[in-house]
């Protein structure tokens, strides 16, 4: 009789790509819920638009590349990219912003680089950067003020849909607001930190809301670490990077943002736990991940403090994506039985 033959091992773990993607999507949900609760239905609408366009554009490009469509779509990565885009864009962004972002992320950053696992940059962050630079007005004036607080009324979903699909970047002033970091940065010039933090906007306003959002993402991230889908190295690096830079440079909260605002006032937790840990674009070894995270944290601080943009996670991630292959070359693990690890590009014959 002919018996089956194949290479060992003859068994496998039960964690597939789809399972990993689903877990990441699931742990993003608390953050999404917090965003919707505090900043309106816009985040849900944007996410849905982005996810839909992600699926459609991926199906289209897969057909062009002659790859199996259904099999690839069901691995969940398009879903995840759409979700990240929806979480990053402002709540009142017109509908074509998530469409453009999603198209660019899937077609150019992901598929044309070779598909799943082959992209050099994080698709969602690359798309965010594109949209931010190409359409600065909608991207800077569509940030939602926290609803249900401070006298700002809560918009229901039909009103939100109307805003989104009206296509016009002009939205009533009363319900938009700068992001918390931006607000702090502009107003710290006139007030002291204590005074600023006591104002309505912060005490009951954006900081209050955004704090809960970050907490939700932190919770989701810790869950992922427990499930061993990501490791603690990259998130720890990001948080450490931001904290260390703050400690060195921002001892005076009257001039710069305090550490708490850095960590909980922007997209830091989302970036640390979900974006810096994106497997395809982060460094490979654990040592490398820490360095990667530190770099992200450092650049985030630099751009926030001395750069033009209020929240810099996207750009820091993109810069470190550039550097990830280089970091890989210099952070190889030490192989059992060999002394020291091999550094650099040139592979040395005498690595023993």
């Amino acid at each position, binding site marked *: 009789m002919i018996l089956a033959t194949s*290479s060992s091992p003859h068994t496998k773990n039960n964690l597939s790509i789809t399972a990993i993607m689903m877990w990441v999507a699931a742990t993003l949900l608390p953050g999404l819920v917090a965003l919707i609760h505090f900043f309106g239905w816009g985040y849900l609408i944007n996410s849905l638009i982005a996810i839909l366009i992600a699926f459609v554009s991926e199906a289209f490009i897969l057909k*062009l*590349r*002659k*790859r199996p469509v259904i099999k690839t779509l069901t691995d969940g990565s398009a879903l995840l990219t759409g979700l990240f885009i929806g979480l990053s864009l402002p709540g009142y962004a017109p509908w074509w912003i998530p469409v453009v972002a999603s198209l660019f992320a899937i077609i150019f950053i992901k598929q*044309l*680089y*070779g*598909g799943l696992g*082959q992209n050099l940059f994080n698709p969602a962050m690359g798309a965010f950067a594109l949209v931010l630079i190409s359409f600065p007005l909608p991207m800077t004036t569509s940030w939602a003020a926290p609803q249900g607080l401070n006298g700002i009324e809560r918009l229901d979903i039909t009103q939100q849909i109307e805003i989104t699909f009206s296509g016009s970047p002009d939205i009533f002033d009363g319900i938009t607001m700068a992001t918390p970091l931006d607000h702090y940065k502009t107003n710290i010039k006139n007030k002291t930190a204590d005074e600023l933090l006591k104002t309505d906007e912060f005490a009951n306003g954006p900081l209050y809301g955004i704090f809960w959002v970050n907490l939700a993402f932190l919770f989701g991230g810790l869950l992922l670490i427990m499930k061993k889908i990501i490791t603690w190295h990259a998130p720890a690096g990001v948080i450490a990077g931001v904290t260390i830079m703050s400690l060195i440079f921002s001892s005076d909260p009257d001039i710069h943002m305090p550490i708490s605002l850095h960590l909980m006032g922007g997209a830091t937790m989302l970036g640390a736990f979900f974006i810096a840990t994106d497997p395809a674009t982060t460094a490979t070894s654990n040592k490398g991940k820490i360095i990667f995270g530190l770099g992200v944290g450092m650049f985030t601080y630099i751009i926030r403090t001395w750069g033009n943009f209020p929240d810099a996670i996207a750009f820091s991630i993109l810069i470190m994506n550039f550097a990830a*292959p280089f970091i890989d070359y210099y952070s190889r693990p030490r192989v059992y039985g060999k002394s020291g690890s091999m550094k650099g590009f040139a592979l040395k014959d005498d690595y023993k």
Partner: protein
Amino acid sequence: MSILTAILVLLLLASLFGALLGYSAVRFKPEGDPVVAQIDALLPQTQCGQCGYPGCKPYATAIANGDAINKCPPGGMATVEAIASLLDVDIVPLDAETEDNPTQLVAVIREDECIGCTKCIQACPVDAILGAAKLMHTVIESECTGCDLCLEPCPVDCIDMVEVPKTIHSWSWTAPVSQNSEVKIIATDGDRH
């Protein structure tokens, strides 16, 4: 006046750098032509002449002088790729109709029919045939490169090219066939990390 100075200065600089270059050309002149030896190291040393040259070293010299790199069937695409990466030229598909990575063949003399004429011994480029006039000829299997130059001279046609038999010892794992990324359309399909 200033023009004269300028010209003088330029002349001085030119002669200075010229002298430096000339000195370097003489002092650091490479011994022989190491590229040829490097190319020869990549060729399979079958010495069969299918490339049109009488041996692998002459072909290596020809490649160093600009000849095509795809003329060696026993080396296969692996050799073409290795030479291409050494000389930083484009990879071209193999010249001949022979398929890539042919199985290793060795010559075997049917000893009942051998007439001891030594024609095959004279033809073998690596002296892999043992024998003398009017005495039995036999191929030393471990030295035979499979070039089949001995087949033609034999007047009684008693030499066969046979495949080296596969044993448990020579068995090895094959590369796994990947289900994805077999279709190469965009430039990033294939050899990207």
